[in-house]
């Protein structure tokens, strides 16, 4: 699946997008997987209580299920308008 990072997350993780091939059942499992990369990833994503999630460009939650063709995005609270 494709994973995207925006705004401060993109900057702090030093990554805008990547492909994840490991099978994960839902967003929570994807976050567990990414958190294994180190403290920065754990703090910015898994432990981040204000983390916003979109799956296939719709707002989603940690228990939203995922499949291999999904597009998942992580970002901070939005500030447009």
């Amino acid at each position: 699946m494709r994973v995207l990072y925006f705004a401060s997350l993109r900057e702090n993780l030093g990554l805008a997008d990547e492909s994840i091939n490991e099978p994960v059942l839902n967003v929570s499992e994807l976050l567990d997987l990414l958190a294994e990369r180190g403290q920065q990833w754990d703090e910015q994503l898994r432990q981040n209580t204000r983390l916003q999630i979109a799956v296939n460009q719709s707002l989603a939650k940690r228990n939203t299920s995922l499949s291999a063709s999904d597009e998942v995005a992580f970002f901070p609270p939005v500030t447009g308008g």
Partner: protein
Amino acid sequence: MIPIHISVQTEDFDVNAQMQQLRQGNSGIGAIAAFVGLVRDLNEGCKVSNMTLEHYAGMTEKSLADIAEQAKMRWSLQGISIIHRVGELQPTEQIVLVLTASAHRHAAFDAAQFIMDYLKSQAPFWKKEVTPDGARWVDARESDEKALTRWQA
């Protein structure tokens, strides 16, 4: 079928032209509510020299279209326009335009406010400001989250 116009763009927009487009050929419109958001030169006590608006291309359009669709279901509207700019913007520049057309004013006003409240807390745009202390991501305001509760009662 009412006209719904959504655009995410780097170029500026013309309020008169957008209003004209919304009204085109419809003489049943009695009320148009409009909202224009502008870049302020001061935010949370800091001078802002310019700002960059990042967005999640694709999801922004989808999110705005979805918010417009919800407004259409809740109120009797005759047209909706939402334009949001992205990229680099200077103080006093226009950021966002919302137009809602209806037979009567209450529907137009409520729908415009509803759209702005949802846009502010759900559409994937992020502002980064340049201040004398360097660049910083703008913090989301808790009041924007709270603003949604009035529509969820």
